[in-house]
């Protein structure tokens, strides 16, 4: 007798637990609440990333095409996998002194692991992260970027 009661009890409990789950899904079907997915390429315009989002390393330039990179190479030393290469050149300044400035600040996006050591250790805050995240390109060579813009100069007052 006990086993028969147990048998029916099991069935009722089982069906009860199933109905409990169905209640949740059924409720979401009829009142989905907030749709959590995004229509990604369509919402590009109003898609705002967080300001600290590590998209890619950039070198901010001001309006007169000046950057803060002194070419010290600390970012290159700190980079764990050889993403950054700083090529510097020597120029003669207006007052006749020799000065080392960067020729090219090469950044290989394809190798970057976004550890943020270059941005953090840069003594003159010349590097920053942009919020750009659409990195796909058709040619691998396009992933090798030169961060300083052509004709740019060192910002005044930065040593």
């Amino acid at each position, binding site marked *: 007798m006990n086993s028969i009661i147990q048998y029916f009890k099991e*069935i009722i409990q089982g069906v009860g637990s*199933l109905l409990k*789950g*169905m209640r*949740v*899904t*059924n409720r*979401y*079907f009829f009142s*989905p*609440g*907030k*749709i*959590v*997915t995004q*229509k990604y390429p369509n919402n590009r315009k109003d898609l705002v990333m967080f300001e600290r989002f590590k998209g890619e390393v950039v070198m901010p330039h001001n309006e007169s095409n000046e950057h803060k990179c002194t070419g010290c190479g600390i970012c290159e030393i700190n980079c764990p996998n050889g993403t950054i290469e700083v090529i510097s050149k020597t120029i003669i300044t207006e007052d006749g002194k020799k000065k080392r400035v960067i020729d090219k600040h090469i950044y290989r996006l394809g190798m970057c692991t976004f550890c943020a050591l270059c941005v953090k250790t840069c003594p003159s805050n010349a590097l920053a992260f942009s919020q750009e995240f659409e990195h796909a390109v058709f040619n691998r060579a396009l992933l090798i970027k030169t961060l300083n813009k052509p004709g740019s100069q060192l910002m005044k007052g930065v040593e």
Partner: protein
Amino acid sequence: MLLNTISNALSTLSEPWWKIFYDFSSLTQAIDEGLRSSLSPFWAVTIEMLIIGVVFLLFYALIGLFLVIAERKVCAFIQNRLGPNRIGPYGLFQTIADLVKLLFKELIPIKNADGFLFNLAPYIVIIVNFMVLAALPYGKGLHAIDFNIGIFYVIAVSSMSVIGVLLAGWSSNSKYSLIGAMRSGAQIVSYELSIGLAIITVVVLAGSMQLSEIVEAQRTGWFIFKGHVPAFLAFIIYIIAGTAETNRGPFDMAEAESELTAGYHTEYSGIKFAFFYLAEYINMFIVAAVAATLFLGGWMPFHVGNWEGFNRIMDFIPPFFWFFGKTFFVIYLIMLFKWTFPRLRIDQLLTLEWKYLLPINLVNVLIMAFLVLMGWHF
């Protein structure tokens, strides 16, 4: 000539065109008479068959495509998503795009597969679907063949689809496919019993196996209400067993995505895969349609006792829509199962059948027979 006949037949209809939604028999009668008046009986029947064949082909494709998008939308809303939303308004043409893609896809030949059986399997599954669809009553007078053993025929034919699944698994020469097919064989063979017994419960109540008569017997009340608890139990058991029959929801052991990658149709590609995929949805439709016919009154409107006004309003909705409304309600239930429950294990599946459903079902049939004998149903 054919079009002429049909247009003549339509023009001879005495009622306005929308009345045919309430009773299709006048339309079919008119077409039949028109054809017979201008052709020999042999050609008339042949042309009628052709028309029915084309209608069913279209219906098959439409229902398949619609159910696929419906399933994707239902599961999306359950999961707080939007579902397909790129192609057409609200993504409604997504399945058509998918179909076109599958049509153009390469049919990958499998080395060491049994080519003939491999190609045969999807067709068996599809043909079984067509045979069952033909016997269902879709509305008043909208019934291709009305066998006097209609429901028996439906069970008998639908159980043949397992042959297609077994062939697919065996001929693919893949280990995952074989395991999936064997599971499916064990599953369908055992759940046939439950389906059969649940249907017998209704047949006892209706006193007939003819689908049109079963529907007609529900004019005074749907069987699920008429038959008290036993009919309700039979309905529940039918839905569970039907879900298992279609290899869906918590019983998708034959596919078992997380265990067997895709089960019996792992090796299929392109349109052959599409056949299996469509067949799954048509199977679901068949199960739901049979449930609607047997338990929810088929195309009969919902009537409550002596509420004349209410009953008249219900009558205003065409029987055609009643049938599909009920069917889609059952389909929604089956979809809800799939998107809520985790999958059973193969031995639990068989335990559920042999230890729970079958004994309850047997007792249920007895109680129902007793009820009918004593005339205690409504």
